[in-house]
């Protein structure tokens, strides 16, 4: 037996003064590995209408918006890696691995660093991140209470606002939670596009106020605004619900959004284990002003466009016994657009049908790490409407996820 390594180790331990207990612990190179978690999301969807013909009349469709695929479908597998970088910074990467046309693609959802130790209540975040506007925007889809996003998120934010840039937040030194924040973003993410203003084409601002009302109630209200510039923000060609081919079109101009959100959570004695209710409502209004470039087959043409659009959703999820929840969501959108100077009609022109949707869900969580959900949508978001049934599983592997409010 070769005892030299042991002697060397003992000498090393003695030199740097480790206690025998510390020396007895396994020496490994992975002790400093970051926290890694993986979310798997699988679905079975049954729709009456072909989702390829989906449109939101009165709105320009953003990328990857719509009800999803028919039949068996894989949601995004989300890989999350996070850790403190040092005493000043925390870093986080979220990658979505999705299956598109049978091929696996990796999309960078978030990659950011955040300060931990700025004085006076300031926190700075930099990188690509989900904006902190609204209530739902910062949450990843697996943390939502429904299998799909509210219509206002689908129409105004292409599911959610994410972009590269910086975020500065200030938390007031008060017993009531009061936070102000601003973000300066590249202008690449919907509703911006084309990285206007030399890659500073979008900015946001938000304020959040919240607290407890007794031991059983918690509330939060927020207000947000987004100032976005679009250069050639393109919607892909598609077939409308009647099966008529619709041309690709692109929006250039200003897109300004304001929003209000309110959240109320109730659990008897603040004990979420047994029973609880979560109520969320958000309202958004957007005004857009600019030009539309398209081609109806007779060559490129440009028209003037100004849009005034608003919408809201209200949802409640009730955990009536441990592990079981039921939920109801109401959605509505309305658009009042003016498009002129074009030889044909686009989705933006069809603003006479106000999209609406009612959703019911029931979900079962075997543990904190697994959830099965059944959801039914009476979807009147476009003429003719659709009845949608979604069956979904969401599981979480690895590091324990955070209980975001």
């Amino acid at each position, binding site marked *: 037996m070769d005892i030299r390594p042991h002697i060397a180790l003992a000498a090393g331990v003695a030199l740097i003064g480790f206690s025998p207990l510390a020396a007895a612990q396994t020496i490994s190179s992975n002790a400093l590995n970051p926290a890694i978690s993986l979310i798997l999301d699988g679905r079975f969807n049954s729709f009456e209408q072909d989702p390829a013909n989906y449109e939101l009349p009165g709105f320009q469709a953003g990328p990857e918006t719509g009800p999803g695929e028919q039949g068996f479908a894989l949601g995004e597998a989300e890989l999350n890696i996070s850790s*403190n970088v040092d*005493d000043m910074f*925390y870093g986080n990467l979220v990658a979505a691995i999705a299956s598109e046309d049978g091929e696996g693609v990796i999309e960078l959802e978030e990659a950011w660093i*955040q300060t*931990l*130790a*700025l*004085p006076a*209540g*300031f*926190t700075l975040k930099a990188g690509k991140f989900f904006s902190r506007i609204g209530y739902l925007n910062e949450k990843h889809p697996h943390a939502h209470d429904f299998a799909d996003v509210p219509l206002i998120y689908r129409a105004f934010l292409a599911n959610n606002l994410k972009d590269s840039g910086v975020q500065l*937040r*200030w*938390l*007031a*030194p*008060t*017993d*009531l*939670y*009061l*936070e102000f924040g601003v973000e300066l973003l590249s202008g690449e993410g919907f509703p911006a596009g084309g990285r206007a203003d030399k890659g500073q084409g979008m900015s946001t601002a938000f304020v*959040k*106020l*919240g*607290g*407890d009302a007794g*031991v059983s109630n*918690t*509330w*939060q209200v927020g207000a947000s605004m987004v100032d976005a510039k679009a250069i050639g923000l393109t919607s892909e060609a598609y077939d409308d619900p009647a099966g008529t081919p619709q041309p690709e079109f692109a929006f250039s101009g200003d897109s300004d959004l304001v929003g209000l959100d309110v959240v109320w*959570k109730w659990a008897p*004695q*603040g*004990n*979420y*284990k*047994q029973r609880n209710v979560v109520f969320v409502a958000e309202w958004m209004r957007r005004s857009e002003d600019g030009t539309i470039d398209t081609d109806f087959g007779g060559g490129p043409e440009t028209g003037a466009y100004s849009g005034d659009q608003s919408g809201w959703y209200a949802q409640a999820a009730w955990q009536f016994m*441990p*592990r079981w929840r039921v939920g109801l969501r109401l959605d509505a959108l309305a658009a009042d657009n003016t498009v002129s100077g074009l030889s044909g009609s686009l989705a933006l022109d069809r603003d006479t049908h106000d999209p609406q949707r009612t959703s019911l869900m029931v979900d079962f969580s*075997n*543990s*904190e*790490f697994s959830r099965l959900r059944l959801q039914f949508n009476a979807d009147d978001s476009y003429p003719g409407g659709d009845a949608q049934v979604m069956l979904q599983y969401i599981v979480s*592997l690895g590091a*324990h*996820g*955070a*209980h*975001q*409010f």
Partner: protein
Amino acid sequence: MNTIKPLLVAAVVSFALPAPAILKVFACEPEWGALVRELGGSKVEVYDATTGLQDIHQIQARPSLLAKARSADLMVCTGAELEIGWLPLVRRQSANPRLQPGQLGYLEAASAVTMLEVPESVDRALGDIHPFGNPHVQTDPRNMIKVAAALARRLAQLDPTNAAGYQEALAAFNSKWTQALERWQAKAAPLQGAKIVAHHKSWPYLADWLGLEIVGLLEPKPGIPPSSTHLAGLLSDLQGQPVRAIIRSGYEDARPSEWLAARIHAPAVLVPQTVGAAPAAADLFTLYDAMLDALLGAK
């Protein structure tokens, strides 16, 4: 001018003199809040983030917790991943440099005591288990002596001008606590070797202190609510065993233990796991009296 001058002097003096330093303490669980009050007295202002009627695993990083963490000088928590679902987020979003890793503003009680049930291997198929050991350390009052020593040291580091005061408070606490421990141990003598069924795996430290034997758990796996099949299996396992009590914490559903109680002729009792989990557990001292009374009253 004559009226302005005294005002100016007063303003300068009040600005120059440090305000009476009251340490703001954020206590993750009520038992640590109570311990900080014992040692800090009027020199601390304590916020209890949770109550004895809440399941600590299920807390969310809600707005009020962020607001309180923003101003805290010290955060006292159990640690050992008991608060894994919410505390890392609260600390990170608190915009408070004092609470970050490596700073004096964060103290884990689990770091001061000897952990029980540290798993050899971890697998989520075994339920929501804690890789650093069972975190419910407060159910053994002997652990309070160790945590109190660490806490008094930390308070003195954060507030050196009152260091002597914290040491005195610690000495007074230790002497009162040692007497109480003797009294509790004498009182608990009849419980030696008693067989107990528990709702969740919350009680190894209590069992270690009193010599109890935990013969069954209502949860099939930690964190998974009791199911009828598991309870039926437990019922047949317990046939012929003299169970003294089926115990649950203040936040746990009474129905599973009552279902079992009706079938094995052992009482279902609420044993307060922390201050405020039952009306009798009003402070740190009455907590352990209430625990023992609940167990002794069960026959």
